[in-house]
């Protein structure tokens, strides 16, 4: 089959999709299915790797190679797949528990190494599969099965963690905005190096409406901002709000008030290596700020880890006289017994 002609349906597997009706995972699946034919990879060259969690069932539903690992280890398994064969297009599917609780270390080390895989973090701020315990992204105070009196923990911001680990790509989208999700996933896939895409995902069963504030259609546009590289940071139903920088902090301003015009606003520079501003943008939270969606950070990475590994091997191989076990075993100090 010609790659050009592949359609989203071609990437659907024959497995029955088993998420709860109304779960945000369904929408993410369809966003991914839409993106896949546009990547320019054949089925057989795409691999989906996941851990354990509701979200981690994802690979079963895509008609590519897939690996449903153990809890928290998707990042490590995917690192092995990609460095073993850099020609593959590798996706990691993980949840806020899988990727940031038990898998947190592999997450930051994947990002640090900058291996060219595309990670999609299904953030529903809850452990779905195990039926509703709080996760490292649960809002402080969340009442869950293991926090009947409310959690006492500060949540992680996945963007913060990514940027803190020297991440070169971070983007955010919402399950209920599938078109935008597809666009972002395409940009993520294009990025050479590790791309992290956080999808705010609703778990209807155990954490319904955790993102209600910012997904509610009536108020949504006043509470989120879509960042686009090179464009000023304007948002609001009436495009009347903006973000400004003062005293090394971001401030929400009203256009027109106090003589503020769009010239005064921050212009989004997703490409700068200086991550201070990306950190501030990624950490913005409602109600003090709008929540940033879109590609927040997308630096050129010099070269991804998997490519550097191959390059180094070829360079050494080229220079060495040892090209077989026979060469090696007979190199250096040997002696003959006659």
């Amino acid at each position, binding site marked *: 089959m010609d790659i050009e002609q592949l359609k989203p349906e071609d990437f659907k597997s024959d497995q029955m999709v088993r998420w709860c009706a109304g779960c945000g995972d369904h929408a993410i699946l369809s966003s991914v299915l839409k993106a896949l034919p546009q990547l320019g990879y054949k089925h057989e060259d795409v691999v989906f790797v996941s851990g354990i969690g509701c979200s981690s069932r994802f690979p079963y539903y895509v008609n590519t190679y897939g690996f449903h690992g153990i809890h928290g280890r998707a990042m490590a398994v995917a*690192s*092995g797949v990609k460095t*073993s*064969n850099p020609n593959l297009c590798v996706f990691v599917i993980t949840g806020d528990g899988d990727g940031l609780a038990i898998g947190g270390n*592999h997450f930051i080390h994947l990002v640090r190494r900058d291996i060219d895989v595309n990670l999609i973090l299904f953030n529903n701020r809850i452990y779905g599969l195990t039926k509703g315990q709080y996760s490292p992204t649960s809002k402080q105070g969340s009442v869950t099965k293991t926090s009947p009196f409310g959690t006492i923990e500060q949540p992680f911001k996945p963007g913060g963690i990514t940027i803190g680990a020297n991440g070169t790509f971070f983007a955010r989208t919402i399950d209920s905005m599938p078109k935008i999700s597809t666009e972002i996933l395409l940009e993520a896939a294009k990025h050479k190096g590790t791309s992290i895409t956080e999808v705010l995902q609703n778990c209807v069963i155990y954490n319904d409406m955790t993102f209600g504030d910012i997904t509610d259609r009536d108020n949504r546009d006043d509470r989120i901002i879509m960042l686009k590289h090179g464009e000023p940071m304007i948002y609001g139903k009436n495009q009347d709000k903006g973000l400004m920088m003062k005293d090394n902090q971001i401030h929400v301003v009203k256009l027109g008030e106090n003589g503020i015009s769009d010239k005064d606003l921050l212009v989004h520079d997703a490409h700068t290596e200086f991550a201070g501003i990306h950190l501030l943008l990624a950490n913005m939270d409602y109600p003090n700020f709008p929540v940033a969606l879109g590609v927040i950070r997308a630096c050129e990475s010099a070269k991804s880890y998997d490519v550097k590994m191959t390059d180094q091997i070829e360079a050494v191989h080229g220079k*060495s006289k040892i090209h077989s076990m026979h060469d090696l075993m007979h190199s250096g100090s040997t002696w003959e017994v006659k």
Partner: protein
Amino acid sequence: MSKQAKVIEIEEVAIRFSGDSGDGMQLTGTLFSDTSALYGNDVSTFPDYPAEIRAPQGTVGGVSGFQVHFGHTQINTPGDYCDVLVAMNPAALKANFRWVKPDGIIIYDVDQFDAKNIEKAGYKSDPFEEEDVTGIQLISAPISNLTKESLKDIGLDQKSILRCKNMFALGIVSWLYDRPLEHAVKFFNTKFAKKPILVEANTKVLYDGYYYAETIEAFTSNFKVKPADIEKGVYRSINGNQAVAWGMMAAAEKADLQLFCGSYPITPATGILEELAARKDLRVKTFQAEDEIAGICTSIGASFAGSLAVTTTSGPGLALKGEAIGLAVMTELPLVIVDVQRGGPSTGLPTKTEQSDLMQALYGRNGESPVVVIASSTPSNCFDYAYMACKIAVEHMTPVILLTDGFLANGTEPWKIPDLNDFPEIKVPRVERDTKNWQPYARDPETLTRTWAIPGTPGMEHRLGSLEKMNITGTVSYVPENHELMSHIRDQKIQKVAKDIPPLEIVGDEDADLLIIGWGGTYGHLVTALTEVRREGHKVALAQFNYIFPLPSNTSEVLGRFKKLLVCEINLGQFANYLRMQHPEYPYRKFNKIMGLPFTVKDLTEAIVKNLED
């Protein structure tokens, strides 16, 4: 080289070089042992590093030793006790005196035996009074001062000059055992190619040590150890870690697969990773992971992607890998896990040897999770068993745990470089390109092995995972009967590996009453003890196990031929227990040591004789 003293021919000698961590004893020992090997002796060596953290200079904790055992006959161990102890300071004496033979020689650097050092070593008075040196020949040599004297005009600073004193000691011992000096000199020339002054300094000191020994009348004779009757061929010296690395590389070459090692450093296994990391010329991929779990998981990913994937570790790391080994069991992917055992439990005795991870290797995972377990038994056959581990892993699509230990890992011996053509083929059960209706969990009826479809192969897209798999299709299945079926299939699949492994063989007397049973790294000591006991006229046999799970098919038959079975291990009896489980039809006696050290031949012969008697 001419010399006057009487030359005595002897069969074998063990020499222990020992001094402070900074005294270069490992190098001294290595040069001596390489020279002996080049000369044609059979050789076995073992370094005795201090515990991981450096202890203050001059203290017992900081002593570094290196024992070389060489001979005209076959040498299977580095020797329990030494004929010569070279002690560069009082701490070296303190740490090693117990290992000197009653009629041995101690050569010591008398310049270092000052009050301060004697105290640091923990002696209260004259060391040679505190220790019972009756019968021992003491050679007091002013090694430090003579080294200074020898190099006073060469143009080196004092510190660098003193760094050469190990070569003075090497010179003395070289004269004593009639070893040529060329190899060491050649080594200096390569090593210090860019610093000719160091070539000159080391060479000079080495010769001066040699002449010193020849000149002083301390030695009434020197000794000659004739070359051993060694199989013809090209040899090199190899230690267990290097042999493991090379065995896996050889397997990758034969199987025409890329070798991938995801690993995390841990003593005493790190050497394997280091060896592999150096072999980019052979396109080996090493991935130094953030921890042991990531080490094995990257390897599982690489295995899924079609590499020959391995991961290397020691006991605590194997504990961390347990969960992921189960993943490889469930996904039925080839994977080799090397565990270089060390003293436990917990961090335990990280630089010491032990055989206490056997049960962990067999059972350290949740669920019914069988994997193949094999163990190598000499530094150089680590090559063969690493090769076999890879072959079994690939051909049977299963994880294989290879057990070595700190003793094998660091011990060296001459190794006849093999011809890889003599090694068995490795057949990769890859899916044929055009297979129609391929099923991920369809199996070879003989071996129960499934086939391997590698990402990038069109038409074979499939999904593996850690949930129970439906037989044949490989989809997720919660069907009760399927789980029972799969549990048995996974078990049988490993049992069937027994068909591919050689029968258990015995060494010694077929008609003996007593069979000594060992496994893994104790072979050298057991076979030496066996030889000694037999030399004394006793009948006894030895069965050394390399294949642990499954056991060789003739195991019960072999064990059944002997009246008494004595299982010797460096732990509290794990293999004996395991044999009880597998072959409850026999009673087993046990002999165990657990001191962080190899067996001594002496302890073993005593135990054997005792068991012969009662």
